[in-house]
């Protein structure tokens, strides 16, 4: 696309974002304020992730974009097209081939490697926001590591429902210091946060970037006698038969017919291909 810099953002802006990313990597889980730019896509649609990706992208990268685990959902298609147009990078749907993966709401099933970067789109970066709406107050709570309120919320869940009723955006404590919102991934994905890849989180509207360096401990908050459990719908994928992957429910007819399929479309496809090869 003529008239725009590589990956859309100008180099000054990229430098500013890279500084925020480096600071985020140096202080894992800490939300670094950054001067988020107005992007040519709406706030809440991945502007934070797009800015982070644009700042780390190099021409040699192979990029994969997923939304809800799938490469073919409309917003993923739109963001992938944006980078194809503005950076002319190679794109892929295969998790193993990608060097940079931008995601919304999922971590790929296939374990990531130390050669990969996973960029999350984050709507509300502040894990305490719904307990305390004032930014001045939540920043103080982080600074002083006052997280008692977070456990009050979990306590209330157990008192009311018999278990912790947070099923996605399940908060984690990073490197025993900051409580962090892992973005709205299902809690099934939380254990995958301790990964070989660099994980970067971008919230455009809220002007925050945070990060997890490889293998940073990210412990899901819980109680000793009500330990965290990664959960998914019971059963296996109706297409590839996987029992270990997160499942989407698909309604087949109006008579209650439904099936469960892998939310990670690349994982599902590669399992089907492997089975066909073996046969």
């Amino acid at each position, binding site marked *: 696309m003529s008239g725009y810099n590589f990956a859309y953002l100008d180099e000054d802006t990229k430098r500013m974002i890279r500084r925020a990313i480096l600071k985020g990597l140096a202080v894992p889980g800490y939300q670094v304020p950054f001067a988020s730019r107005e992007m040519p896509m709406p706030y809440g649609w991945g502007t934070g992730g797009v800015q982070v990706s644009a700042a780390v992208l190099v021409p040699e990268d192979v990029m994969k974009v997923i939304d809800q685990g799938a490469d073919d959902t409309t917003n993923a298609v739109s963001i992938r097209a944006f980078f194809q147009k503005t950076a002319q990078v190679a794109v892929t749907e295969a998790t193993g081939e990608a060097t940079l993966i931008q995601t919304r709401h999922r971590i790929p099933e296939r374990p990531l490697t130390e050669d990969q970067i996973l960029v999350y789109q984050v709507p509300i970066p502040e894990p305490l926001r719904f307990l305390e709406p004032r930014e001045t107050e939540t920043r103080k709570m982080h600074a002083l590591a006052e997280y*008692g309120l977070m456990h*009050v919320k979990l*306590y209330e869940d157990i008192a*009311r429902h018999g278990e912790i009723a947070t099923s996605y955006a399940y908060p984690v404590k990073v490197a025993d210091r900051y409580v962090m919102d892992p973005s709205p991934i299902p809690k099934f994905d939380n254990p995958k946060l301790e990964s070989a890849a660099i994980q970067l989180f971008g919230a455009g509207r809220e002007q925050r970037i945070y990060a997890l360096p490889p293998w940073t401990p990210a412990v899901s908050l819980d109680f*000793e006698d009500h330990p965290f459990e990664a959960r998914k719908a019971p059963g296996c994928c109706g297409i590839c038969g996987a029992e270990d992957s997160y499942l989407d429910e698909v309604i087949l007819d109006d008579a209650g017919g439904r099936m469960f399929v892998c939310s990670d479309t690349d994982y599902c496809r590669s399992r089907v291909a492997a089975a066909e090869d073996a046969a």
Partner: protein
Amino acid sequence: MNPILSVRNLEKRYGARIGCTGVSFDLYPGEVMGIVGESGSGKTTLLNCMAGGLVPDSGEVVFDMREGGPRDVLKLSEPRRRMLARTDWAFVHQNPRDGLRMGVSAGGNVGERLMSVGARNYGAIRAEAQDWLGRVEIADDRIDDRPRDFSGGMQQRLQIARNLVTGPRLAFMDEPTGGLDVSVQARLLDLIRGLVHDMGLSAIVVTHDLAVVRLLADRLMVMRQGRVVEQGLTDQVLDDPQDAYTQLLVSSVLQV
């Protein structure tokens, strides 16, 4: 014996107006001191200056810390002061809404302080909350109810339980019986007196109600226009007031 709290020359001004000035006293462990005066006398300003809600313009508030001995809390770092406020100190607000989380269950309200200092066993937290609800005479089956469904007296008892669960050594109370019916007041005062005695708690109670201090306080401080006009043993001050203003205050109550 060291005083648990020593206040020296505390002063707070609002522009040209005096909030409180020249306040000095010592509070000894296990002692309850009442601060009385009409509204606008500076007693609530004084309480907030000591408890950290307001920053005084000058003076010292020296607290005998569990570790480290006497320290001027005004000079403590914010994390240490906040830690103190949720461990060794208690603050009971006049309006329970200011001291409770109205959207959180009674058990969660009591458990919050425990969780904020690291308790991570749900069963143990709940058992402790249950025990404290019993001590403030709230029935077992109300543990999962929210305070907004409680009567005013119950809310106030819940606020007390929430504050005392970490075994603080010093409690600040701002008109703890204000806004309650007389019969409810009497029961609450009785409860507070029992808890203070059982826990060996030191307390500073601000009130305009002389009946409250008569029942709770060992010592009394009378304030007027931001200054302490008289202090001494409660019975002494109430039965033989020396200052003209105190005499007026006492006589007006006696007439009721």
